[in-house]
């Protein structure tokens, strides 16, 4: 873990190092190309798209596709653009993140400090759930929600996201709490703290870093979800990803690729924003989810 670089710093570029830089640049271009194409296509008008090279910069900037994608593009008979989907995604994401992170934090806390017989058996079952393909659970879960009267409603989709977020979130909270010094917990116990008090006054104040990781993981995960939103959200709450797909895949009419690309960018703005803002935390979230996932 020493931060001192070992060996002499390369003072001049060797052939090998030049080759390495060339390779890494080519890779970077490959990774950037779709983003570049997305952005420039959204700024061209359709005539130019039909006539010119997909990789060329636009000759004339045209911004008309952006407002169109946002508020006028059609999905079937409704022509309201992505706007309703954006607000639906917010309505779905915010409560789902709060509920799933809160619940999983309590789970992790209970598993780390208040172990009872059988607790880890159920934890194992829960972790096993993380690997079951959604397709196995979608229909029975739909039946359960139907029986509860929340199928195709906002609470219905929130519950589904809470269920499927729980395994991985519980795992990372548990792993974080286990790494805290146990003496802290013991001291709080001696001072007469009970389950709720210790959680509120000792654990929560120390949970900021892992909570940020969990929130980032959930915000991007839920925002990017397609399948669950499609099945459980219902017609009135369709998330942005579902609407995006509907807008782009319409069978009839002239395909407007610039509008499609604007819509695609708009849909990925939130997760990209989270990614660029959070940087290191995003990476930490991946690592936390993967270490023992």
């Amino acid at each position, binding site marked *: 873990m020493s931060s001192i670089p070992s060996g002499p710093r390369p003072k001049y570029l060797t052939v090998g190092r030049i080759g390495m830089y060339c390779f890494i640049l080519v890779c970077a271009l490959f990774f950037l190309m779709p983003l570049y194409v997305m952005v420039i296509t959204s700024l061209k008008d359709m005539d130019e798209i039909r006539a010119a*090279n*997909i990789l060329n910069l636009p000759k004339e900037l045209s911004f008309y596709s952006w407002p169109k994608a946002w508020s006028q593009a059609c999905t079937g008979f409704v022509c309201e653009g992505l706007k309703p989907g954006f607000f639906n995604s917010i309505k779905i994401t915010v409560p789902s993140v709060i509920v799933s992170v809160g619940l999983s934090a309590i789970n992790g806390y*209970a598993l780390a400090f*208040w172990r009872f017989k059988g607790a880890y058996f159920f934890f194992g079952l829960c972790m096993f759930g993380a690997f079951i393909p959604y397709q196995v659970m979608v229909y029975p879960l739909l039946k359960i929600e139907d029986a509860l009267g929340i199928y195709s409603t906002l609470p219905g989709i929130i519950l589904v996201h809470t269920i499927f977020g729980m395994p991985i979130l519980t795992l990372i909270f548990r792993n974080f709490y286990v790494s805290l010094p146990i003496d802290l917990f013991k001291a709080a116990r001696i001072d007469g703290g009970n389950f709720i008090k210790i959680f509120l006054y000792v654990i929560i104040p120390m949970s900021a870093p892992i909570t940020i990781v969990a929130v980032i993981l959930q915000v991007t995960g839920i925002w990017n979800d397609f399948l669950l939103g499609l099945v459980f959200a219902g017609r009135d709450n369709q998330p942005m990803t579902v609407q*995006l797909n509907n807008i782009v895949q319409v069978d009839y009419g002239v395909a407007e*690729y610039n509008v499609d690309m604007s819509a695609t960018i708009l849909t*990925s703005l939130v997760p990209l924003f989270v990614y660029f803002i959070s940087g290191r935390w995003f990476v930490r979230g991946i690592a936390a989810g993967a270490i023992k996932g």
Partner: protein
Amino acid sequence: MPLSRNIASIIALLPMIIISLTVFVGCIIYSFIYSLTNSKLIPVTNFVGFDQYERLFKQRKWDVAVENIFIYGFVFTIGCLIIGFLLAVLIDQKIRGESLFRTIFLYPYAMSFVVTGLVWKWVLNPTFGLENSMHMWGFSWFELDWLVNRDLAIYAVCIAAVWQGAGFVMVLMLAGLRGIDEDIWKSLSIEGVAKWKSYLFVILPMLRPMVVTAIVLIAAGVVKVYDLILALTSGGPGYATTTPAMYVMENFFSRANLGQAFAASIIMFISVVCILAPWAFYEFYLRNKYAAN
């Protein structure tokens, strides 16, 4: 005494226990039971033994789906591992602009599968996409008609998926590389071992836990692949890029053939268990055994 001490903990974990039992375990049992019936539009308890499975294995479409998932699983996993490892090694060479390159390689991972699919659908568009660009640059022999080619469409899916997921493997591998002791590098350089040899034969074997984790996580994601293909090819041309997940969803929601869908979903579940079981055995049983000794 132990019960009273833990009663709060049990109550706190009740949601997790209920969800694990009803959703994760219950749904599998439900799906299995109804996979033995001839349910069509609604689930009925008219048992027909393993007829649905027999019919499933006779379907040409299911064969294609299984073949596709093997091709996709193989190419995607290997592609992600090789590119991810290579990128991690390159970034580990104390290059300039390290964090910029890391950001570039990881940003696709923040995008949803729907967005990934739609972007690549546009880039690979047979009329206006990259093929057209190459023709405009004078490479008239260049062909990139993968999306409309029955045999190659699945590889287009693989490219899009590797683009999205390689950064994830890079992050995991980089975390592993940064954890390698400096002394090992010192002794390798004293021995005069070539750098690429050290990476391939010394460092890579040391990263085995990381590689195994990456493979398991990627493989678990492979079986789920649905929205990416829906956005990129809609399963086409014809049904050339259909997958088991798509087969299940189709039979549930558009073909009203519940029995088939349940049977196919159970097969999906069994294959996931077959992938996971050896890893879980190694991870949780063998490791604990060694730790105990």
